[in-house]
């Protein structure tokens, strides 16, 4: 490893930062991401939080990671394996080495490797010495001490100085990938506006890292990942939860309603509450309720009173909302329920991702109680599907469950900023008086939805409730035939939504050997796998679903074009079972992973090839 470094050009590269939760790895990763985005790379990120707030320092449980894939080609996932791992301590190395490709670069803070620390990380012996890293290109950099040295003379306590070591590491990464430090230098100025010493210290550490990497010749080469061909326009970075929050606000504005968000905190949904609570001036009311039941009920109250009522939670909280969602379905009021899924059952794996609340979304209510279910598939399209959820719920006057998950919620990607005026119109079915007696359950003929009569409007006084009611008048009715009619009307109303959503798209030729089917957050990995196989000449297509209930009209027609249909999900096969129950004639195979982790492209390709 000597001689002047070379610059290698790459199509894409994956880098992973890992350290103690106090080490600032999320910040480091997002700075790297932003800078790469500004350079024009396409990219996708995946933050990997520890389950504890602050697990004991130096333990594997306390490691926080951030992975980003950047490319000059389209990037749909944060990558299966990292080309470069930056590990700030032995615990970070221990828990992250499994994600590094053989032959990849591993940059460690050699200052952090001592008897005490690698014991604490659960290593038997010193991992640097026992050959366990021989398949990797190990770069031992004394990051802590170099940070200290470079900050000598700045009047900061030792703790604050050491905290800057993440910037040192970021500097190394910037050099390694030939990125400018400007964006981060600006960011630091803004972030520490009120503490100039911190601006100085962090900036110096960043630069020290950059120049260290350039100088020491420990690094084999640096890499260039040229800009991707990206649709022109104005971009920003957005995470799934932020996008969901913004999508809902945008829909409320578009429909001219205030937004009422009733919620109870839960990982990984809480950030939607945090985000929305910033926008009171945009007409957003956030109500942190005493529990999930009160949260959804307050949103139902808001919808009844004429606002857009929305609630959000994760699985355990959604399970609690079932009875109230049933009420909203019964009284036919708008309601958006956002389920940011996480690993389960029960409390499960709160910080991990999973797609296992599909059944709960479909069936988690007493009796026959269909609602609309949609799912987003990338962090940024959480915006569109949150928006769609709001549009559908008011236009069809029935609850909509919007499924996101931990992977989308915390993941982020560049997003071409839409213009609000280009967003689909939302037409609210406000009730109107026509000189005759007002009836709350008069229905729109094409949609079967009722009209929204808002308390405070004169002449529309009426009563609704959870008891079965007579069609049109809404009077409580125990009549057998009316009940059957109403159950069918509520089902039909949801089924008819199929006429108002786009046809299902297929990525590929439209027929062939295997149709890969997915839904929700697996989109990136499925798309990458399918494209790679298509590139290799395989007859594989992808149909990735965002509308789950009802399904797009052309679904069965698509399925019939393929010899095999393979449904891939991060659960035990819930969507697959649902498809089988609707299209028993289609032979459905399934591929499942239940590890709290996304699919890797590799494992998908292997499975698909098996079927070819």
């Amino acid at each position, binding site marked *: 490893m000597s001689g002047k470094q070379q610059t290698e050009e790459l199509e894409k590269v994956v880098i992973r930062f890992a350290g103690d939760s106090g080490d600032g790895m999320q910040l480091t990763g997002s700075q790297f991401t932003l800078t790469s985005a500004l350079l024009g790379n396409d990219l996708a990120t995946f933050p990997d939080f520890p389950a504890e707030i602050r697990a004991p320092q130096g333990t594997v449980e306390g490691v926080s990671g951030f992975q980003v894939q950047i490319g000059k080609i389209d990037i749909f996932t944060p990558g299966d394996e990292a080309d470069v791992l930056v590990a700030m301590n032995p615990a970070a190395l221990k828990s992250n080495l499994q994600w590094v490709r053989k032959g990849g670069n591993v940059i460690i803070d050699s200052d952090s490797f001592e008897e005490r620390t690698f014991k604490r990380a659960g290593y038997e012996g010193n991992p640097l010495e026992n050959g366990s890293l021989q398949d990797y290109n190990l770069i031992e950099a004394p990051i802590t001490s170099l940070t200290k040295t470079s900050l000598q003379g700045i009047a900061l306590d030792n703790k604050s100085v050491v905290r800057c070591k993440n910037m040192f590491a970021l500097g190394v990464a910037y050099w390694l990938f030939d990125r400018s430090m400007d964006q981060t230098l600006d960011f630091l100025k803004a972030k520490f506006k009120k503490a100039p010493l911190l601006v100085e210290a962090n900036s110096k550490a960043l630069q020290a890292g950059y120049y260290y990497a350039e100088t020491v010749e420990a690094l084999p080469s640096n890499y260039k990942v040229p800009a991707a061909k*990206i649709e022109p326009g104005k971009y*920003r970075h957005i995470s799934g939860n932020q996008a969901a929050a913004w999508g809902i606000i945008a829909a409320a504005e578009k429909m001219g309603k*205030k937004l009422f968000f009733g919620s109870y905190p839960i990982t990984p949904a809480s950030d939607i509450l945090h985000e929305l609570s910033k926008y009171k*001036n*945009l007409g957003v009311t956030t109500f942190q309720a*005493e529990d999930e039941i009160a949260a959804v009920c307050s949103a139902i109250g808001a919808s*009844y009173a004429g606002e857009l009522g929305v609630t959000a939670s994760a699985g355990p909280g959604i399970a609690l909302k079932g009875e109230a969602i049933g009420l909203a379905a019964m009284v036919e009021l708008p309601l958006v329920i956002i389920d940011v899924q996480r690993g389960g059952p029960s409390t499960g794996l709160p910080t991990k991702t999973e797609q296992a609340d599909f059944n709960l979304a479909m069936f988690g209510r007493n009796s026959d109680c269909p609602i609309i279910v949609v799912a987003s598939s990338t962090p940024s399209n959480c915006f569109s599907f949150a928006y769609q959820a709001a549009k559908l719920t008011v236009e069809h006057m029935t609850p909509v469950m919007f499924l996101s998950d931990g992977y989308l919620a915390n993941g982020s990607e560049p997003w071409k900023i839409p213009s609000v005026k280009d967003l689909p119109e939302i037409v609210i079915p406000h009730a109107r008086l026509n000189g005759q007696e007002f009836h709350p359950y008069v229905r729109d003929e094409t949609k079967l939805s009722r009209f929204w009569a808002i308390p*405070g409007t004169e002449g529309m*006084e009426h009563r609704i409730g959870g008891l079965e009611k007579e069609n049109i008048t809404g009077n409580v009715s125990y009549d057998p035939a009316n009940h059957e009619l109403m159950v069918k009307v509520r089902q039909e109303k949801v089924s008819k939504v199929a006429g108002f959503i786009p046809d299902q798209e297929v990525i590929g030729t439209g027929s062939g050997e295997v149709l890969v089917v997915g839904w929700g957050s697996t989109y990136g990995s499925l798309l990458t796998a399918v494209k790679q196989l298509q590139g290799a000449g395989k007859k594989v297509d992808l149909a990735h679903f965002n509308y789950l209930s009802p399904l797009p009209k052309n679904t069965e027609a698509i399925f019939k074009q393929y010899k095999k249909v393979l449904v891939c999900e991060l659960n035990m096969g819930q969507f697959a079972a649902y498809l089988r129950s609707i299209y028993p004639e289609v032979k459905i195979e399934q591929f499942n992973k239940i590890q709290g982790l996304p699919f890797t492209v590799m494992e998908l390709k292997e499975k698909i090839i098996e079927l070819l």
Partner: protein
Amino acid sequence: MATNSVDTVHVNPQLTKKDFTSDQLVRWCPGCGDYAILSAMQNALPQLGLKKEDFAFISGIGCAARFPYYMSTYGFHTIHGRAPAIASGVKLSNPDLSVWQITGDGDSLAIGGNHFIHALRRNIDINILLFNNEIYGLTKGQLSPTSKLGLVTKSTPLGGIDRPFSAGELALGARGTFFARTIDTNPKLMTQIFVESSRHKGTSLIEILQNCVIFNDKTHGAVTAKENKDDFQLHLQHGERMLFGKEKNKGIRLNGFKLEVVTIGENGITEDDILIHDAHDEDTTKHMMLIRMQPPEFPMALGIIRAVKAPTYDDLTKQQYELSKENAKFSNVEELLQSGNTWEVK
């Protein structure tokens, strides 16, 4: 606005009871106390100077909770126990509505207990009418959280062993700003209290001692029975002395840290010894004592026991809108989307 054409309903100061009566057949058991409450409410609303469409009645589940069907206002018969949360959403979204939550003792204090205490704590400007018949009526007679200790019911053949809640004590423990108590046998008092509590800004809790003829007949007999009326009802009025009895010659006096019943003219007691009711006292101490009074030792306190000013959650929400507007970096979603770190791809 004052024309009276067929199509427009104008602000009508002459709204009457009939205007608040819906066309639905009332389906409580004959003799149920709920009829009187309904009637008192239909008498109270015309006195509030609001329009018919400005009222929303939100109920949970139970016999009491059927109430909205019989009011020709906006009404929502929701699910068991959750009406406070739904009513909160209604009020926060549409603060001009006069929101009335109708609930039974089971609905509010069993399954709905959490929403009940949280509504009171937040002091959202809604009025809660708690029909306390000390039993589950609709489900045909099980123990309720207000049932007297030892009550034999369908679910407690050997008598209930749960110590009952006192709605008022619980409400004050939850920082409630308004508590009134009334009885189904006194229509005038009910109407008066409904009117007054609707004027309180914040969560008004009105406990109505209601008789369930079928499953818990005469549970409030010690207070409501004709022969007990004078001796066991104390009608409180803010600023007035706590006098009761047929001759209004009995009263409540403070003795050290305890209340006691005294008779004017006996043992040198004069009217000056009798406590003056201060419903506006911030301190809950005396209100708690009044709430706890029980026959036969004491008369039951009726009327508005506590009514103190405190910011309401809905007003504070409005203030935060304003505050937020003053500091806002963007005034619409377009600006929000464009804010912060963005970049152009050409």
